[in-house]
């Protein structure tokens, strides 16, 4: 039924999945040394909790969650911590592979909080590419009602076969992982979206379907077209729901998970095994044993590719991720992280350097393939001209950077590069603007505080003078006309601004309790300081006024 719906645009690049999906899924050899970056997820980097020389087992926590959106990190081999730097932790292995597991948890009877805490302490993040911490994603039910869980097994990018192999080997376990999330989020149905170029995985799922309890699971085979694996595109295709611009799938009651993540969730809950390894596709024409491997996190890419028979003479570049959205690695001495789903060791013939860029001829080809129905050529002009307001008006931030526009461009313009650059420039500007705003509030608060202190000092001085009952010549400086009416107006205005600041603070706090309220609180404090100063000045003027009238 579901494939009747469709998203706009899309392209049909050569799939080239045959190279890596022919061999079985195997374990990569245990690395003798791993390098684990502290940031392998979106949000804040983790904070190290070990120091050099500490002995660790597989699964020992080596870095803890820092802040709200962050994730824990675990040792992926047993051995000794050899270095803790600001960005990464290095572990020298002892070759023993001693495990340290958490107790097993029965998700069918365990309470929600315990399962959530398990996901948190196991360091599970979305393994599809974005690396969003799973326990935060699961807590979305606190804000939204979720009715459908979508298992995103479309895997539309060429070369990558991770989800395919995961489902072939562990369809039952992936479905059980889905049931855990379904229970956590109270969903009513699970829908699996898979492209029709993975017949073995589809068969495996069909065998596993009847056993999956208690939430009903529906298998939906869709036609192969890039980028059907985009979250929004898949939701549109399977459920005919449009996720509005600037909103998340959770806003329309849908949650999307990758099969690899669901498998990791099951391992964490059922076996107490934190996220220390993942499946990686090794492919490309430069290696002679392509396939999918279970790889310990932190393994060096060079080591991994050499084990797969890397021909270094033929190698042109290594791409992490798919050919459409992935990034070329500047060096092979980099570790596999939670986000490394595919490594393509490409020859020069396979990925020839992009031809020289020519000017845009406004053919409109990019517009017809854009899956988000944007106007890529307009965005291109505005990005090059740095017209940021126009970029936002043309919804630059809805671009999913799928690369379809660059793929079809007859002028070979690297459109996505332009968009990425423009996005990061605008993001930086927003950060700077927020900082300037913050500094302004602090400056205003300081001015208000100084004014209040001055008024207090003045009041004390006057009190002293009144006490000493000196003759009028001391009071002479204050003989200038007292502007009682002006002060009264200032006092009323200050009172009103305190009320306004209080109201704004209360409204924002109610609307979005997670948002930082520092600046609003600062504004309220500023208004209060101003009110105090105005009150003091008014009281002082009144006193002076009365003393002048009755000398």
């Amino acid at each position, binding site marked *: 039924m579901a494939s009747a719906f469709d998203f706009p645009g899309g392209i049909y690049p050569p799939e080239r999945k045959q190279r890596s999906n022919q061999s079985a899924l195997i374990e990569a050899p245990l690395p003798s040394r791993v390098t684990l970056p502290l*940031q392998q997820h979106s949000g804040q980097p983790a904070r190290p909790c070990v120091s050099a020389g500490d002995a660790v087992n597989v699964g020992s926590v080596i870095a803890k969650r820092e802040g709200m959106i962050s994730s824990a990190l675990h040792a992926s081999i047993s051995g000794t911590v050899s270095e803790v730097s600001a*960005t990464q932790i290095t572990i020298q292995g002892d070759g023993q592979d001693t495990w340290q597991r958490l107790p097993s948890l029965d998700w069918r009877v365990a309470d929600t909080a315990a399962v959530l805490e398990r996901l948190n302490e196991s360091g599970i993040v979305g393994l599809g590419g974005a690396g969003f911490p799973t326990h935060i994603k699961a807590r979305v039910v606190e804000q939204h009602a979720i009715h459908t869980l979508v298992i995103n097994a479309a895997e539309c990018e060429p070369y990558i076969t991770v989800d395919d192999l995961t489902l072939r080997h562990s369809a039952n376990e992936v479905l059980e992982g889905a049931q855990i999330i379904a229970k956590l989020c109270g969903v009513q149905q699970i829908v699996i979206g898979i492209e029709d170029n993975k017949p073995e995985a589809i068969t495996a799922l069909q065998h596993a379907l009847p056993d999956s309890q208690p939430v009903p699971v529906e298998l939906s085979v869709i036609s192969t077209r890039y980028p059907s694996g985009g979250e929004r595109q898949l939701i549109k295709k399977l459920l005919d729901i449009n996720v509005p611009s600037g909103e998340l799938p959770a806003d329309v009651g849908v949650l999307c998970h990758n099969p690899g993540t669901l498998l990791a969730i099951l391992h964490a809950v059922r076996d107490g095994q934190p996220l220390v390894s993942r499946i990686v596709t090794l492919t490309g024409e430069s290696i002679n044993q392509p396939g999918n491997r279970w790889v310990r996190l932190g393994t060096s890419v060079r080591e991994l590719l050499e084990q797969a028979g890397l021909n*270094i003479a033929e*190698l*042109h*570049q*290594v791409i992490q991720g798919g050919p459409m959205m992935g990034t*070329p*690695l*500047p*060096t*092979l001495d980099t570790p596999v992280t939670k986000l490394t789903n595919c490594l393509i060791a490409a020859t*020069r013939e396979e990925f020839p*350097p*992009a031809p*020289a*860029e*020519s*000017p845009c001829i406004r053919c409109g080809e990019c517009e017809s393939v854009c899956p988000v129905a944007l106007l890529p050529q307009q965005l291109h002009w505005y990005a090059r001209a740095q017209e940021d307001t126009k970029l936002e008006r043309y919804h630059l931030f809805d671009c999913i950077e799928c690369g379809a526009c660059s793929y079809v461009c007859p002028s070979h313009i690297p459109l996505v*590069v332009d968009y*990425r*650059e423009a996005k*990061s*420039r605008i*993001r*930086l500007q927003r*950060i*700077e603007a927020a900082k*300037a*705003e*913050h*500094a*302004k509030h*602090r*400056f205003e*608060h*300081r*001015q208000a505080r100084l004014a209040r202190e001055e008024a207090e000092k003045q009041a004390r001085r006057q009190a002293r003078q009144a006490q000493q009952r000196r003759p009028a010549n001391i009071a002479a400086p204050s003989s200038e006309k007292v502007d009682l009416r002006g002060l009264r107006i200032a006092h009323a*205005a200050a009172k009103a601004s305190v009320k306004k600041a209080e109201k704004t603070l209360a409204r924002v706090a109610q609307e979005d309790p997670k948002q930082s309220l520092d600046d609003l609180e600062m504004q309220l404090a500023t208004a209060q300081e101003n009110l105090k100063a105005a009150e003091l000045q008014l009281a002082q003027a009144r006193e002076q006024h009365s003393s002048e009238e009755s000398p």
Partner: protein
Amino acid sequence: MNSSIDLIGVLSAVAVLTGLGIGFGALLGVVSERFKREDNPLVEQIDALLPQTQCGQCGYPGCRPYAEAINQGDALNKCPPGGEATIHALADLLGREAEPLDGEAQSETKVAFIREAECIGCTKCIQACPVDAIIGAAKLMHTVIEDECTGCDLCLDPCPVDCIDMLPRSAPLTQWQPVVARASNMIASDRQPASGVA
């Protein structure tokens, strides 16, 4: 013919229009008094474009006073922390000609750092800081809150022992900007093909 009717017509038209003019004039006058704004909205807009370092390099005590001065007709080019970008933004807003920056442009954002071993605890820098980013007390060591410091330099001069340095601010990796080498659109055969890795 019928010149008298014409005259009445003309007079009545003039009377009606004058009446309307007086009526609406009075209305506008009353409304502008009744809904008078204390602050100038244009000053707010100018202030929003300034970098809010409150450094006083423009000769005014803070960004807001400079915004007011610009509104009164002062030059746009007195803000070194904002640089060319701010001058262009201001010129766009006010419809004025952009002028080259008066003073040295700042190449990077800085942050004040107090060499704590040398600090004598005089509180002079605390009083000078426009954003209350220095903490400490009399005869106790002072330190700068890095996140709040705007890099305005105002704490340097008052320090009697010169123990404050301006250091380049460390930007987090999340604010990293890609460096895109833009090939000039010249002759295609002039360009070198990109070289690979490994």
